[in-house]
């Protein structure tokens, strides 16, 4: 049964399967039991979770860096203004959420950055 050939031409066959070539994988579900099944693209492309690094600051919204208030090597405190990121017609103030010394600034003024872009790293 498991190796039953899939009818690809029929409209009722999911295209996901048609495109990934019928090959069964196993999926590990609750309590480590493994089931033979097809995987969706979304499942295959899911992001592995990573522990967030409190010393690295990423953009929460896409926008344009208007002004950076710190320099590399400068000591900063939690709550200090890092930069102004203009986004959605709003000049957003970005603050540090940790103490430390600025190790590297990854953005330039007037630079347009996407969401999730590394902006500043602390030591």
């Amino acid at each position, binding site marked *: *049964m498991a190796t039953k050939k899939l009818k690809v031409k029929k409209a009722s066959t999911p*295209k996901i399967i048609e495109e990934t070539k019928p090959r069964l994988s196993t*999926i590990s*579900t609750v309590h480590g*039991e493994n089931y033979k*099944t*097809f995987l969706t693209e*979304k499942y295959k492309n899911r992001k592995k979770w990573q522990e967030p690094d409190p010393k690295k600051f990423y953009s929460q919204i*896409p926008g344009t860096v208007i002004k950076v208030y710190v320099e590399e090597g400068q000591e900063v405190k939690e709550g200090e203004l890092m930069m102004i990121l203009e986004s959605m017609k709003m000049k957003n103030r970005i603050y540090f959420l940790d103490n430390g010394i600025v190790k590297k600034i990854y953005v330039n003024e007037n630079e347009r950055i996407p969401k999730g872009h590394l902006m500043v790293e602390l030591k």
Partner: protein
Amino acid sequence: MSLKRKILELQKKREKVLQGGGEKAIEKQVAMGKLTARERIITLLDEDSFHEYDLFVEHEARDFNMDKKTLHGDGVIIGTGTIYGAPICIYAQDFTVAGGSLGLMHARKITKIMDHAMKMRVPIIGINDSGGARIQEGVNSLAGYGEIFYRNTTASGVIPQISVILGPCAGGAVYSPALTDFVFVVDKISKMFITGPEVIKTVLGEEISMEALGGARVHSEKTGNAHFFAESEIECFDQIKKLITYIPWNNSKKALPFEVKAPKIDQYKIDEIVPGNPKEPYDVRDVVRAITDDSDFFEIQELWAANIVIGFGRLDGQTVGFVCNQPLVLAGVLDVDSSDKAARFIRYCDAFDIPLVTLVDLPGYLPGVDQEHAGVIRHGAKILYAYSEATVPKITVILRKAYGGGYIAMNSRHLNADFVFAWPGAEIAVMGPEGAANIIFRKEIMEAEDPEKMRKQKVKEYKEKFANPYVAAAKGYVDSVIEPEETRKLLLHAIEVSMNKVDAKPNKKHGIPPF
């Protein structure tokens, strides 16, 4: 002037307006591989059944030299007609007239036909093909969208609302389809997004084509915004016509019964489809086809969240909604998307008095950080809510596995199912045998001389004792353990005896479902 001359005058006026945006614009439309708005309506509806209204409506905009422009019908066609004899209200945006842009009078025409559909209690079909708001009309076009959304919401659950995306549908315009029951898209023609490629390029500097951003495939496979995907407009119209045969005209009527036909049991042998080993996959749609009239199953959202299967079939000529776990994809687990997909369909069937049949075979909810962080608690709750809330006849058949939270969620007795049947191979348990044995017999396994041997033995013990339908049947959670071949007969009977079902719920304005 004699009446004859006046008739001639009318004919001339009509002829002029019927040209829409004129020859050049029509040529462009055809070059894009699209039918014109009027062709679409005529193709979709029964022959000679379409009657158009508001043909002579004109816009009133004055700013930006708009007063010098004539826009025939203000870029939208409205009217009534029939599909297989069923009365229908319909509107189609005419892209050849000012890009089908929505101004005040354009919106007034749409809301007029929507109001008409509500009064007459008949389905409304909207064909979307529009560049968006008519900027020259400013806030008036925004008002128009808002008035359409309001009506979509009011009509929701009263009359079927069908949206057909046959061109661009961008910005605020997307929210009318999003509020309707079924959205139809056509490959390479439909485009839907809130912010288009140009805005994304300006804001993000990212370049993406309309097709990759919000094409028919994207909405059918990735976002779940579309319910039916077609390769061509003609195929799309066939899908709409087929859908119309399955659904009632409004929420106080039943869908029209169909000629009764037996399932094709030579092609779909119901006792040979499901493998005995619960870890082996199969296509649950074959089980559906082994049950339904003429083995016909009309699947909805087949390309999105394929780990759950939803759609319509008929039992003795009557429309039934099917919700089934699909072991073929992601082992048939419930997750964020599949819960969302099933819950909305259950609510649709409940609103339109369509009995629900649930076929169960799932290991539970999908584990993973991505699922937890995507809100599987909130989304998973939708399916519990939808089943518990539904008062239509609700019948469950447990085909094989029904473990843990998945068992509860899939229309269990505990959520007030009317009938719960189980096949003899059903495993109704708190979790799979391996996981359960590992927890219950942890000590024995750890302390054994050969832990692996002990583990295997305990798993076997657990399987024999609990991996069956009889523990649940002994408590009355399962009404009857049945042979696969008895399924259709029992479903027919269950629906027949549920015809006058009364499930009185406490009075309330409305519940607060987890959306």
